[in-house]
């Protein structure tokens, strides 16, 4: 670039960025907010998952292979068989129990090890102790530093746990020198087995193979010998499985955070497009003076890059602080309950840092590219003339690219998930959004033409102005349409989800009182005697008990949940919310099992199919007799008859029960009787259906709190966008307002005209945003949710909430338009008629 062009370039840059400080600042803020949210969410979820992986690695130690089965464990007779294999150097048996702390609603993972074996495989689990026998005692345990800190106990202190309905008190003998942030405890394997009723059962066998053997060959050989439901895998497969449980949630949250950045990009687009139009004649002059098209386009993209660099830097700093605050206030799972017991430190994460910095700059540059290309393409002679502005938007007018993009979006919505993630669902949403934005000039023309011309001069002029400049209307609306459509789609999805969840809870909670041995963990249960005592209480008319187990069907996935419960085949729909089936099981066919929607998606358990479930180490065939809706177990769940489960396993214990009151009895008195008459009854958790519903819906709202926050951020950015666009439009029309003031239009009338324009533009934005939002909500419900979490829901549109939001957005954008138009009413605007046209 020559010297002349260089100084001209500086002038143009200065003109846009410095002279329009407020709009430049808004663009920077929008990018900063998007980058901050994206970086913070990625930092938090990334750190939590990383911590989880470190924890799994730490617990696996130097193991080459791990043998795992149901969560309840498997027969320890398998251990000597594997230990004797010639390829195995050391085998270390492990019992894991998520033990419920008796005095609080919390669990602690207790890892039972054979200290002599573990020393060779998981040396990190061996704690320093003054008394070496503490490693072998059945009443002592060692805490990880994170556990000691969060539970507030140290060496010499005690912790009380619930086993069944009993209390088990264990002494803290020391700390495990673990440099991971996970909470866990280590004790002797026999101690865990005896204290938590797991005699003869183990959860895992960690194997260290002899040097030189091929791990995969040995793995395949061992797998062939294992009973059903037990699998041998490399430790890293375990990391993938534990990550996969929260992956969809994390990815969805990250995508939602990126939407804020995308909306910020649209704000930059609107601002740049209008700034380029405002400087159209100046830019044409640069072309006349000898600046090439490429130089001009590069210059304008450079403006975007500057906004991107400043915004990204600001966003990264704020995102880091935001992440620290969010983890402290709502936890590493951002309220969703996926990373209990994980307290990650949040490092700067250089890769995330680079990605989000690059993303912020890239989006700002891309947002500037379209206006830059348009400015470079404009014929200088025409662009120098007044009234050429709308021509700058002419390229947005053809409608076929918009329809084609929306069509491509619709096709993308039909593509199945990729690696368990709804990638094409997200692409579908992006394409629908971009397609609609491309169609906005047409939509604006259509809607504006449908409006009758008002009789009053100011609103009449306002409408005529908008009709004459649909391209400018469309550009101004980009950010607000994106934000409103996001708000509407999320509102519809969340309302559909909440109402469906509420209906589901009503269906699955038919009894008068529910009893649970422990809300969390797997050490609390109701023995057969406890169940009999509960059923025999005077206020109880009917009692049903349920046993929850976790089975391993695929080592690469989290365990599925097996629910063994009383089934009333005649009134099945009262117990399960069936969405498919029921299928009658043919005589002689395997017994029925009812699966949730996730089982259909993840394992192909379709109605009528005969499937095998590993129960008590045996592959037991079942016929899938129906599919039920389930909002609690996205990893998959199967219901079987409890009598059959008992016959197969001999396990008569239950994890929970449902009680129906006898005539004249009331729940409160029954609760008192349970506490008084059942041994350990005070440790039972009792809840009426209403309470469970309330707790569940509260948990739901907590999970979506972050979603609402991200949604709000996008709407705020959208309003910023409208304000910025409107300000730019008003600035570009100063001479028009000056002329109108000359010929007798009062300030109030100019204000009314601007308010009408603001109201009309926002109304168009709302109409387009609502239509697009509804479309996106269908993709969210039918594709993204279904593919991410494997649950379906009925569509419910929250009309009143949406109407309220529409009124608020309309009011805010009208006020925004008026505020942005203040300078149109100033004396300087009157004098602007003398400025060069």
């Amino acid at each position, binding site marked *: 670039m020559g010297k002349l062009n260089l100084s001209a370039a500086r002038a143009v840059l200065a003109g846009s960025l410095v002279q329009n400080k407020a709009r430049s600042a808004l663009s920077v803020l929008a990018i900063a907010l998007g980058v901050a949210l994206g970086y913070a969410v990625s930092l938090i979820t990334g750190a939590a998952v990383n911590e989880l992986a470190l924890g799994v690695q730490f617990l696996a130690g130097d193991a080459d292979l791990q043998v795992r089965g149901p969560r309840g464990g498997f027969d320890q007779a398998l251990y000597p068989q594997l230990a004797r294999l010639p390829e195995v150097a050391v085998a270390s048996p492990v019992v894991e129990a998520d033990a419920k702390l008796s005095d609080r609603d919390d669990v602690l993972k207790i890892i039972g090890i054979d200290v002599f074996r573990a020393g060779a495989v998981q040396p990190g689990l061996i704690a320093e102790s003054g008394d070496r026998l503490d490693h072998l005692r059945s009443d002592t345990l060692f805490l990880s530093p994170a556990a000691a800190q969060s539970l507030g106990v140290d060496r010499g202190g005690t912790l009380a746990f619930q086993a069944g309905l009993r209390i088990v008190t264990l002494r803290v003998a020391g700390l495990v020198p673990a440099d991971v942030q996970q909470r866990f405890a280590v004790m002797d394997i026999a101690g865990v087995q005896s204290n938590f009723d797991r005699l003869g059962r183990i959860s895992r066998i960690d194997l260290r193979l002899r040097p030189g053997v091929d791990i995969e060959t040995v793995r395949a050989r061992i797998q062939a010998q294992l009973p059903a439901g037990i699998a041998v895998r490399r430790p890293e497969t375990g990391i993938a499985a534990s990550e996969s449980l929260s992956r969809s949630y994390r990815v969805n949250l990250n995508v939602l955070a990126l939407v804020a950045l995308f909306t910020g990009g649209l704000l930059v687009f609107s601002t740049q497009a209008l700034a380029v139009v405002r400087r159209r004649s100046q830019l044409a002059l640069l072309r006349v003076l000898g600046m090439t098209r490429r130089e001009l386009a590069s210059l304008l993209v450079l403006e975007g890059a500057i906004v991107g660099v400043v915004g990204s830097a600001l966003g990264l700093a704020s995102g880091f602080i935001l992440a620290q605050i969010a983890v402290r206030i709502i936890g590493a799972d951002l309220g969703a309950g996926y990373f209990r017991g994980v307290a990650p430190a949040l490092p700067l994460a250089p890769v995330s840092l680079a990605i989000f910095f690059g993303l912020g700059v890239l989006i700002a540059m891309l947002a500037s590219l379209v206006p830059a290309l348009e400015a470079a393409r404009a014929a200088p002679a025409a662009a120098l003339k*007044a*009234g*050429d*502005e*709308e021509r700058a938007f002419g390229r947005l007018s053809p409608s076929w690219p918009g329809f084609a993009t929306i069509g491509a979006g619709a096709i993308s919505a039909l593509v199945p998930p990729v690696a368990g993630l709804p990638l094409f669902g997200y692409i579908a949403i992006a394409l629908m959004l971009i397609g609609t934005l491309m169609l906005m000039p047409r939509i604006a023309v259509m809607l504006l033409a449908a409006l009758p011309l008002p009789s009053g*001069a100011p609103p*009449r*002029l306002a409408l*005529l*102005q908008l*009709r*004459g*400049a649909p391209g400018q209307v469309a550009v101004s609306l980009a950010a607000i349409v994106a934000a409103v459509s996001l708000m509407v789609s999320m509102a519809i999805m969340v309302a559909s989800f909440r109402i469906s969840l509420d209906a589901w809870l009503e269906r699955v909670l038919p009894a008068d009182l529910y009893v649970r041995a422990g809300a969390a963990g797997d050490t609390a249960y109701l023995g057969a005697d406890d169940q009999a005592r509960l059923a025999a209480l005077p206020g109880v008319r009917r009692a049903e008990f349920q046993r929850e187990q976790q089975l391993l069907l695929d080592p690469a996935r989290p365990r599925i949940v097996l629910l063994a419960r009383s089934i009333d085949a005649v009134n099945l729909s009262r117990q399960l919310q069936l969405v498919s089936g029921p299928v009658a099981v043919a005589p002689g066919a395997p017994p029925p099992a009812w699966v949730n929607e996730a089982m259909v998606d993840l394992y192909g358990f379709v109605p009528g199919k005969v499937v095998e479930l590993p129960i008590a180490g045996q592959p037991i065939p079942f016929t899938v007799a129906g599919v039920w809706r389930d909002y609690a177990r996205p990893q998959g769940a199967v219901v079987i008859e409890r009598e059959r489960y008992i016959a197969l396993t001999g396990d008569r214990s239950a994890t929970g029960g449902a009680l129906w009151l006898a005539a004249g009895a009331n729940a409160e008195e029954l609760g008192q009787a349970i506490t008084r008459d059942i041994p350990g009854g005070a440790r039972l958790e009792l809840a009426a259906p209403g309470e469970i519903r309330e707790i569940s819906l509260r948990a739901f709202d907590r999970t979506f709190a972050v979603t609402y926050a991200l949604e709000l951020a996008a709407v705020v950015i959208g309003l910023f966008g409208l304000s910025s666009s409107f300000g730019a439009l008003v600035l570009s029309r100063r*001479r*028009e307002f*000056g*002329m*109108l*003031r*000359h*010929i*007798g*239009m*009062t*300030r*109030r*009338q100019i204000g009314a005209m601007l308010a009408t324009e603001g109201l009309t533009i926002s109304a168009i934005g709302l109409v387009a945003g609502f239509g697009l939002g509804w479309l996106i909500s269908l993709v969210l419900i039918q594709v993204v949710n279904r593919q991410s979490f494997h649950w379906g829901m009925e569509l419910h549109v929250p009309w009143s909430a949406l109407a309220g939001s529409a009124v608020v957005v309309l009011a805010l954008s009208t006020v925004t338009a008026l505020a942005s138009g203040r300078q149109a009413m100033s*004396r300087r605007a*009157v*004098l602007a*008629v*003398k400025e*060069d*046209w």
Partner: protein
Amino acid sequence: MLVVQGLTKSYAGPRPRAVFADVDLELSPGDYVAVMGESGVGKSTLLNLIAGLDSPDRGSIRLGDVELTTLDDDALTALRRERFGFVFQAFHVLPYLSVARNVALPLSLLGIAAPETDARVTSVLAGVGLDGRGESMPRELSGGELQRVAIARALVHGPQLVLADEPTGNLDAETASQVLRLLREQIKTKGAAGILVTHSHAAAQTCDRILQLTPTGLRPAPSS
């Protein structure tokens, strides 16, 4: 009809500047005067003061029976709407309105009913030689035609006073001559008074009188 007496204007601020002092001017219906002067002498400021768009430091401006310096912004705006017409150098024709709608703007602000508006617009467009061009958009018009639209807009509501600030500054000589002829003709036909601010002697020659604005007042130009 227009009586300006002792009009004085200066600008405050970090570098205060006296623009002019003791300007007197009297116009009767049908009078058409040119105001000339060096750049920066305050010709446009004088027009802004007369139009009530700026306030003087001293002096009085009477239009008919109304003293402008005592009116508030709303009253001045209402007065401008009824009794003034403006023609600008840069035309200021709204690009999103048709020619007819541009011309009808003052009538629309006055709340004149549609049939009467249509009749007046048709008539004034015919008067400026744009018969049948009412539905054209500004982008379809030449500079000369755009200024004709601006003249039509300035006269459509029958103003008492037309203020024209360098109306031919953006036009070639031949078109300028046509526009000036038209402006004079229309002002005279409608019985209005007119003030033409210009640098051009040729343009000024189309007026009845030529006045020279100086820092100390408005005087007849030496050659007039």
